[in-house]
């Protein structure tokens, strides 16, 4: 019994190493997770506008256009990192980005956008996190491509990076535009 206790450290290390080994699988892309939503209609979005005096955010208003729905929060560090590239998504690929402040105080989200600049075509405040649940997000940031028919075409879990834009999102956008 006493010997078993001394075996414990090596057993824990073995489990961790096995997990890391699976994590290093080159086919695993930590930021591209399949979503049950891909190929299905996007959940409806009906949220209070984030900017002061803005109208309610309704996804239906964007019907006929390919849009990116980006969930963010002022408390989320990777959201700061991806922020600069969201503008690029709009400027280079002509995809308007809809921003949803998830589980965040509207004041804090507004301050976040005031500080870094507002890359979004429209913004909504999902303070309760309800819309996030509808989309099945597991954290922020996450970005969904929704085509003109309201069908979810791609889901990116994690921040938008320059490499991600080029290698992952660009093909997904081209595919969705077809």
């Amino acid at each position, binding site marked *: 019994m*006493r*010997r078993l206790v*001394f*075996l414990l*450290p*090596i057993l824990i*290390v*073995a489990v*961790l*190493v096995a*997990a*890391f*080994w*699976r*994590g*290093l699988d*080159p086919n695993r892309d*930590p*930021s591209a*997770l399949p979503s049950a939503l891909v190929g299905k209609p996007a959940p409806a979005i009906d949220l209070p506008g984030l900017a002061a005096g803005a109208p309610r955010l309704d996804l239906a208003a964007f019907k006929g256009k390919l849009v990116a729905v980006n969930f963010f929060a002022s*408390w*989320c*560090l*990777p959201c*700061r*990192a991806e922020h*600069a590239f969201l503008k690029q998504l709009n400027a280079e690929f002509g995809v308007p980005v809809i921003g949803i402040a998830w589980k965040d105080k509207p004041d804090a989200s507004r*301050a976040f956008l*005031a*500080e*870094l*600049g507002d890359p979004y075509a429209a913004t909504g405040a999902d303070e309760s996190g309800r819309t996030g649940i509808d989309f099945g997000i*597991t*954290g*922020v940031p996450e970005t969904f491509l929704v085509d003109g028919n309201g069908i979810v075409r791609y889901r990116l*879990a*994690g*921040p938008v990076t320059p490499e991600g834009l080029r290698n992952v999102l660009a093909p997904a956008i081209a595919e969705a535009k077809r």
Partner: protein
Amino acid sequence: MIPELGHYALVLALIMALAQATLPMVGAARGIRPWMQLAKPAALAQFAFVAFAFLALMQAFASSDFSVAIVTQHSHSQQPLIYKLSGTWGNHEGSLLLWVLILTIFGALVALFGENLPPRLKARTLAIQAMISVGFLLFMLLTSNPFARLNPAPFEGDELNPLLQDPGLAMHPPTLYLGYVGFSIVFSFAVAALIDGKVDAAWARWVRPWCLLSWTCLTGGIVLGSWWAYNELGWGGWWFWDPVENASFMPWLIGTALLHSALVVEKRDALKSWTILLSILTFGFSLLGTFLVRSGIITSVHAFADDPTRGVFILALLTIAIGAPLTLFALRAPTMRGGGLFAPLSREGALVMNNLLLATMTATVLLGTLYPLLLELTTGGTVSVGMPFYAATFVPLALPLILLMAVGPFMGWKRGDVRGALQRLIAAAVAAFGAAVIAIWIKTDGPILAPLGLFVGVWVLVGTVIEFMERIHLFEGNVARIWMRACHMPRAAYGMSLAHFGLAIAIIGMTGAAAWKTENIKVLQPGQSLALQGYDFKLDSVGGVRGENYLADQAHFVVSKGGDFVADLYPERRQYLVQPMPTTEAAIRSTPLADLYAVIGEPDGKGGWIVRVYHEPLVSWIWFGALIMVAGGLTSLSDRRYRVGAPVRAGAAQAAKA
């Protein structure tokens, strides 16, 4: 030519390391003295080769030799010289070379100053250290050659990431690595002792200075990183529980536990197998950090470029470096006999509590860091673990530990007098209650953390002072006698008092900064102002400035309070010439009570600027407290008994005989 020589020096270092890893080990097993003695010249030569390679790389950066690939990727001819030099370790390959350099520095130091170590232990320790070198040199030569050339060479480089162009980067990685990698030598000592099958008070005494040195550097490195984030990132924060911050914090936590448990081995000959385990795990966490940062397995703001082949290689290294010693541990440790017995309520008992709490805290941070990965692998879901998790798990473990910190030093070895200890701490309790009441008075509806944090902070602060005064019998005898006693007190005792005192100061600072931070954001036209905590920040003007390799908008704030002038602040928003990434340069006015922190954001296009100001109470206490902790570590290190290379001769002689 010089880069090729550097590359060649690395190959020679690898050959040296191979010799050092094998011959002395065999020599120690068979009692062949010359083979054992080979470890010393091999360690010195290995250090010399790696140092040559490092200088060669630095030379390539200093002279902007763009035919070297990583110089092109991370430097620019217009960059200030200091950032050209610090760019040497501002990338994966260069920082790995720094890593190996420090590994060989510690090997060379033991070779030079370990004259009093038993020859067998010394040979084995250096051999183990060389095995780590072999792994990392292979890793560097096979997957991450810092000297890879470009042909044709470009005329200009891509510039160092602007965020890294800060004096912080010049100091933070070398200091951090000294700590991080320094624990490798403690690890080598522990594995050598496991092979030897003997751990005793003398062993603990030999290991302690290395442990102290690494701990001190790690403390300094972590705080420098935190200070850099506070100054450079412009987010007004100093700790984000980012996976990479955690990667350096876990070795610190477990290393702190080790520092305390080694004390028990040294004084009381108990907790031996536990101390060996901690020695292995501390360096294990350093390796884990290296793996997490460089494999791209976890998303973080700090991560280097990710490359799965590198990840596999480090994982293999990690598995061998940790797996083999832990297997040996499982075989050998059960037979180790503890010496001293002790009652649960004693100095040893308190140190055991300290160790249990620190180990649990480490496990908590490990869980928080790896949970997103483990969940993703098992269920496919992703989460991000942040501040709330650590506030709910880490803080409740830290509070009892800090409470205990004041009591422990009053407890006697073997059997302690808890009542007596608590009686002597009455003044500390009174002061702590006072502080908590003041905290509530300052802000009645503030978070509960504020009074709790101040309570424990002041409790340790006063408790440490009382313990120090009792030790020198401050109120007995005349001044000359007290002075004598103070002079004769061992430096290690001063070190402990300073380190505990420093941590108390830092805890008070962290509490204040976390609980009472306030901020205000507004779009201001020049001439307008905004208010925060009674201060009036007037935006006087915004003008263009040109730095060596950037253009910046520099704002001028006039800060006043109640009409009286307080300070001028000049935050900048920089646009570097090569990399199109704006960075903020916060302007900070530091006072003991609070920092005023101003950042300027984007222009709104209508003549106004987005302006953000923070009022950060007590932040400077964190830096000041950490500085005292480092001073405590250095003081303890200078203790005659532990002086590097001068362990007690009697112990060494005995061990040599045995």
